[in-house]
């Protein structure tokens, strides 16, 4: 293991990136829960309430309030409770979902902004027949989650990481995971899980290649 831990990408910077990629969240909105009840200027295009979302490859019609966050819609309107709310203000990553294959904090994204985009949640990670995604399987096998509250969020981040960088270095893994917090594992068994998933994947690809020949 390298002696120096890379601090090149700090948690804060990463998070700032994620938030900027999602919705404009003012400092006040980030610190304090904004009231969604009344008296706020309407968001552009947010007038209609019944909208269609593309979640896990399915079209879902859903009634969405004006300033509803994606986490709220997923959890309480669509019954997809896999994404967790650990802070509801862009700090912990427990609510991470993929929007157009990029991880976002769903607590910091307004549902109205993802109407024409592809949303993937933890519920959409396993294959249709229920076979776990290699990362999920590795997390099970390597004891990558303890209480499991952070796990769905991590899983989405890891999926994105491996999709973009199939063989990340240890530092790259650390940097990528710094968008999410875990309070149980000290991250170390998660690294093992990621390694195991990569190994499994690589073996899988090699086998396919052999078969193709």
């Amino acid at each position, binding site marked *: 293991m390298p002696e120096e831990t890379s601090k090149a990408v*700090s948690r804060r910077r990463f998070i700032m990136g994620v938030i900027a990629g999602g919705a404009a969240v003012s400092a006040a909105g980030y610190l304090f829960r904004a009231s969604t009840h009344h008296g706020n200027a309407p968001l552009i295009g947010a007038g209609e309430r019944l909208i269609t979302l593309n979640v896990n490859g399915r079209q879902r019609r859903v009634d969405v309030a004006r300033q509803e966050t994606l986490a709220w819609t997923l959890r309480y309107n669509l019954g997809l409770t896999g994404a967790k709310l650990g802070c509801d203000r862009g700090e912990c990553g427990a609510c991470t979902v993929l929007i157009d294959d990029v991880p976002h904090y769903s607590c910091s994204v307004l549902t109205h902004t993802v109407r024409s985009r592809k949303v993937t949640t933890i*519920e959409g990670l396993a294959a249709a027949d229920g076979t776990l995604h290699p990362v999920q399987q590795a997390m*099970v096998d390597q004891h990558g989650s303890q209480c499991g*509250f952070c796990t769905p969020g991590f899983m989405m981040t890891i999926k994105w990481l491996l999709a973009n960088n199939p063989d990340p270095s240890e530092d790259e893994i650390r940097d990528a*995971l710094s968008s999410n*917090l875990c309070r149980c594992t000290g991250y*170390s068994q998660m690294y093992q899980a990621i390694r195991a998933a990569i190994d499994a994947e690589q073996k899988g690809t090699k086998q396919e290649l052999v078969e193709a020949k």
Partner: protein
Amino acid sequence: MTDFSVIGKSVAMIDAAGKTTGAGKYTDDFTLPGMLVGKILHSPYPHARIKCIDTSRAKALQGVVAVVTGEDAPNPYGILPVGHDETALAVGKVRYVGDHVACVAAVTEEIAEEALELIDVEYEPLPAYFDPVESMKAETDLIHENRPHNLEKDYHHVFGDPEKGFAEADYVAEARYIANEVTHAAMEPHCTLANFELDPHTGKMGRLTVWSSTQVPYYLQHKLSLVLEMPMSQIRVIKPLVGGGFGGKSEIIPLEIIAAVTARAARAPVKITYTREEVFWAHRGRPRTIIDLKTGVKNDGRVTAVACEVIQDGGAYCSYGVVTILYSGALLGALYDIPHIRYDGYRVLTNKPACGAMRGHGTVNVRFAFESQMDEIAATLKLDPAEVRRVNLLKPPTVTVNGLRVLSYGLPECIDQVITRSGWAERKDKMPKGRGLGVACSHYVSGAANSIIRSDMPHSTVNIKIDRDGGVVVYTGASEIGQGSDTMTAQVVAEVLGCDLARVRVIAADTDLTPIDLGSYSSRVTFMSGNAALRAAQDVKKNIVSAAAKRMNCAPEDVIMHSDRVYKRGAVAGDNDSEAAEILQDKEAARGHVDGQILRGSVLQTRKEEGPKEHMSFEEAVVSAIDFHGALTGTGSYAPPTEARGGKHKGGGVGPSPAYSYSAQVADVSVDEETGEVTVHKIWAAHDCGRALNPVAVEGQVIGSVWMGLGQALEEEMIWKDGLLMNPGLLEYRSPSSTESPEIECIIVESVDPEGPFGAKEAGEGSLAATIPAISNAIYHAVGVRLRESPFTPERILSALRAKKGMKRIEMTESVDPTAPVKFREHGGSLWFRGKGPTRHALDPSRQGSQAGSVAGGER
């Protein structure tokens, strides 16, 4: 003794798949028809009398169903019988900023929040106490009237003859250490859903069901019954998955009671989930602790006496405080051999959120002081720090001077392991500039030998039922909170019954279904609940064995259950390996044959005619047992033996445990002398867990503990300003992220405890305490400054480095400054009230004359 088939092997958590697919349900994932959202109004004052509360405007708001205040549930409660000083909602007085004042149940969260603003509370502010030393001087305006000088509890213990011990010493070290306050920050915010059923006969409010993220469902059931004045049998507490506890959910958190009280008033299900800020304010974490420690040693480092005075800043309520202050003293013993101990402990009330139990309860901060002082002594006497620890080892079996019984003791091996693996001897004196190694040890109880409710009832009970198809259902009150309690239970049962782990299903922590268990705290589950599971499995096994003996025409002693098979001794014994292998291979076929058919009886009939057998499948044996004995059930319970229950002195009930875990650690650290930044490169942690029932889970627990200790050592700190928390957020509180977390190498040491289930002891807490001093000792060896206040932030390190160079010391922690004003004053930076930033309540006098209408972020 390598003959185990299930335990001792790393197995995946039995609930792991649910967690990785998002299918696992935590409390906040549940919704009930007609469910209302509860929101709580908190106090903006650290100490004030409530003159009146007017909820009429809130009640009139459309969508509001109920508003409750302290008067609706005035019965006091508290986790300790000696500390019943809390009420669900404030009655007459608030004692910290964030104290719970009223709760609104409404159809949406927004309406509930709006209603909170319509509640008018008239407060009369009182002088507040924020510093424990100041607080102890208080004569008037006490936080609790029955606690003179705001002293929750003080203990003065003398074991042996400390004066004599110090007189014998060649050298006496003395210093003050301060460990600042930290909190659990579990990823799942507290959440409770409460629902009353209507009584079918009377239509009145009937049974109550509560789903809650708790470590202690049975205590919750008990306290609910106390406050709601309902019999416990009318209350069902269900613990769904819990997203981490670390002690923060090991007592009754106000929202748990408030949800029930509000549901009763609203006559509808009510769910309350704390916001992240509220979680910080609910707190119950590790108190800021001031430790004055004095250690006498001989020239070879042998300890002759220890005197320790501890002051804990306990916050506004007792919580676990009396236990915390006792642990701090009691666990000076049982790690090393200390012949004479004097301990003075003060648990002080202040106007801040209550502190409670947190991972390593009571021991962590004192261990930081003690292990640092050991290192200072080693430096002064020019001894190897590891050697100083070795000369002070206990010689078990033994009873320490303060009455703690120690049987298994893996500390010597733990020390050897980390010293060898870290290359201590070769590397220690050749470290480059700014880099150092530090060593430290710690220990922890495997459950408290005396329960907090003084009673003789068993601490854990487990029931088992086995169905005709060989499915084993285990009912346990133990609370899985991510530590692997369900898996441990299943493993123990499968091991005893010699069956596949996959057969075992665990139903846990539902007070209607599962027998009583005290809960998941003080690292008691593996030892106590594990022992109960072991006994329950043995109980049910008796019946299987006796029936199998009849079927196989042999004595019950000759029946072996192993590898999902039941066979006659000799048929598959070690002396007959080839046959054994054959029979075991056959097991799939045997199972296929039996499945389903036996239930119809036909095959069973023919089988009976087959005559005596040599071996059979687990299902077959189960069916025989049910045929012979009727329903196949077993039960087992565990209470710690009387010899392990400690001395008779006042407070002697806290500290004793049937077994102690041991840990030794070496930290490899470098310090940037320019910036004061500490980088931890690696930590070697050896942990004696008796026997690792599931090594991968033990590793996870040890690494998690070390990592949490690392957080407390380097970054985590609750920063207070006149009773206001300055950093109630996960970014501001700074628990380490993945880029700040070093490699932690876990070394499992197995001392096989004579009383633990298969020899197992605790693994989930004991390692935490050694990490903080290991790091501070490493910092000392890196740059020569001794940090006696945690966390070791760059500011503190720079300040110490400056002091060492003779420059003026910068005092960074204002909270340490005794001259700092103790009066409450307005802070523009506060995130309170109710998440609205600097705005205070309309009736807050401190707002009078200030700019009206300033809102959150208004100054930007």
